[in-house]
């Protein structure tokens, strides 16, 4: 150790000098790039739109279903809660999608199918546990009668996702078009099979009785189940963050997003990591499906709409980024909750257009999404 250490003492001093110069020049460069970004017209357009929307919601929105926030803070508060709680559901559904894309560059079009399948399986398990197949009273549903079906549904989605990855996708690594077509085909097959098995009527998972009640906030009644859903989303987010940032597997996944080949060069079997990532991503799709079925029910077509929701979230937030999924969910959730409440009543039908407005605006300012980077 001695010769190397002696050399190091000298080098450390020299290196500190070069480091501080490099760091200075790098921070100057980053300030410059931020200033350049500020000069782009799209950033100004986005800022003006944000200020205009805020002014509209706060004082100008008379004649809308919710009214101006300054006049009716209770409605505003409820709309904010709607936005945040729906964002929670969006986050759970989209986080698995973005996790799989980040490492494997696979746009898993079967994500919505896994979402719906988990929902159906959970509903069946819940019916079996409660002992009734329709008109289930929340009072009869204990916490376990919701949690166990949730785990069962998400578990089935996870295993099916892993099977899809092992049977179809691992042979087509790096071939995005093939992966997309394969997963789309799987979606079509699964949709038909689910229609055959579970029928065409909308079904609903029942929230546990313990959380099915209302409370009053700002003079408005609000469902506790939405907060329960948000709590689960936060728990999922925290666990996912801990997994990716505090465990060696998570570090390997993040390293694999950066440079897959180099990870292999360190003796790590990336195929096993891919499989695990697909398993977890599909499990999250399943958890999202069960939350979605409890929140708004499950029916044929739910798979497509939740694939679209996940896509919108990750396009806004940036593909492959967990932070992006959180930010994208919040923005998308906000637009979905605020548009019908704060558009003039005769224009409420056009609320859906605001989603596309948000997409266009985000992509104009940041073409790779808020936290995305080039593939």
């Amino acid at each position, binding site marked *: 150790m001695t010769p190397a250490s002696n*050399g190091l003492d000298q080098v450390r001093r020299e290196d500190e000098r070069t480091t501080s110069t490099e760091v200075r020049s790098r921070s100057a460069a980053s300030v410059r790039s931020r200033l350049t970004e500020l000069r782009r017209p799209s950033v100004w357009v986005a800022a003006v739109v944000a200020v205009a929307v805020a002014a509209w919601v706060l004082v100008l929105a008379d004649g809308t279903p919710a009214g101006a926030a300054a006049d009716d803070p209770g409605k505003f508060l409820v709309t904010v809660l709607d936005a945040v709680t729906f964002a929670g559901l969006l986050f759970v559904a989209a986080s698995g999608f973005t996790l799989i894309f980040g490492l494997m560059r696979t746009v898993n079009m079967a994500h919505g199918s896994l979402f719906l399948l988990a929902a159906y399986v959970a509903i069946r398990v819940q019916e079996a546990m409660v002992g009734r197949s329709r008109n289930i009273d929340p009072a009869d549903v204990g916490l376990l009668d919701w949690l166990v079906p949730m785990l069962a549904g998400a578990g089935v989605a996870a295993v099916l996702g892993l099977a899809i990855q092992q049977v179809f996708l691992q042979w087509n690594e790096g071939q995005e078009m093939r992966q997309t077509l394969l997963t789309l085909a799987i979606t079509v097959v699964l949709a038909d099979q689910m229609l055959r098995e579970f029928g065409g009527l909308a079904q609903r998972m029942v929230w546990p009785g313990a959380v099915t009640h209302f409370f009053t906030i700002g003079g408005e009644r609000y469902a506790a189940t939405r907060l329960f859903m948000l709590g689960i989303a936060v728990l999922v987010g925290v666990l996912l963050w801990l997994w990716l940032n505090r465990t060696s597997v998570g570090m390997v996944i993040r390293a694999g997003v950066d440079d897959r080949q180099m990870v292999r060069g360190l003796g790590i079997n990336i195929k096993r990591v891919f499989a695990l990532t697909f398993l977890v991503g599909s499990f999250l799709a399943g958890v999202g499906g069960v939350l979605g079925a409890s929140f708004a029910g499950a029916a044929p077509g739910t798979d497509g709409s939740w694939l679209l929701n996940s896509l919108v979230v990750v396009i806004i937030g940036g593909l492959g980024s967990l932070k992006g999924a959180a930010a994208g969910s919040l923005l998308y959730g906000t637009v979905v909750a605020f548009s019908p409440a704060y558009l003039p009543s005769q224009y409420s039908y056009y609320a859906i257009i605001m989603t596309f407005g948000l997409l266009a605006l985000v992509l104009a300012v940041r073409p790779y999404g808020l936290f995305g980077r080039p593939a």
Partner: protein
Amino acid sequence: MTRDDALLEVRDLRSGYGASLVLDGLSFSMGVEAVAVVGRNGMGKTTLCDTLVGFLPAAGGEVRLAGRRLDGMAPEAVARAGLAYVPQGRRLFPSLTVDEHLAMLARRARGRRWTTDSVYELFPRLAQRRHHGGAALSGGEQQMLAVGRALMLNAPLVVMDEPSEGLAPTIVDVLVDAVHHLVAEGVAVLVVEQNLRAAVRMADRQLVMVSGRIEAEFAGDELLDRPDLQHRFLGVGATAGEPA
């Protein structure tokens, strides 16, 4: 060029991209020592590294590490068989901190010679910057991290591709010391270098690569003192210390 006590034995290795062969019948062998492969740009040095570590499939010939065939193996299997790689340009992971670069390999390194602690002991500067991301490090620190990451594999052979590239001379000194230190500990080091002076300081044996083959072998400072040989093997106007 083969030896009885060879740790790494490369015989008639052929490799390239598509139909064009960059390595064309390359052979050499080395024991537990430092060996440098020098050559001009475009002679196939990086292709040699990529083929050895399994990033590029060999089109023919064989690579043996301690008697075990490596050619045809996937990169992860090559690394597990005992070949650690410090790539050109370092290829650190921008999303990971210094600590995380080492922590992701810590489980397999537990109880062996090179652990997170012993890498920090070899490169104390890294320990001070353990919570910084790869992009916030100076070039020298990045190279130390790339070497430290490779050491965590506890492999008997470390292959370094252009380790002195873009580094201040004092940082190159650290690398030279580290290479000598590794060899003294029984780790073989294969350095692929354009910088002739750095190559000579790191390794007593230098192999000259010309058009995908080893054309000559030198020992000690011989090549540094012979401008005619440098001219012949490493290109017109090449001078010691400059990229050869």
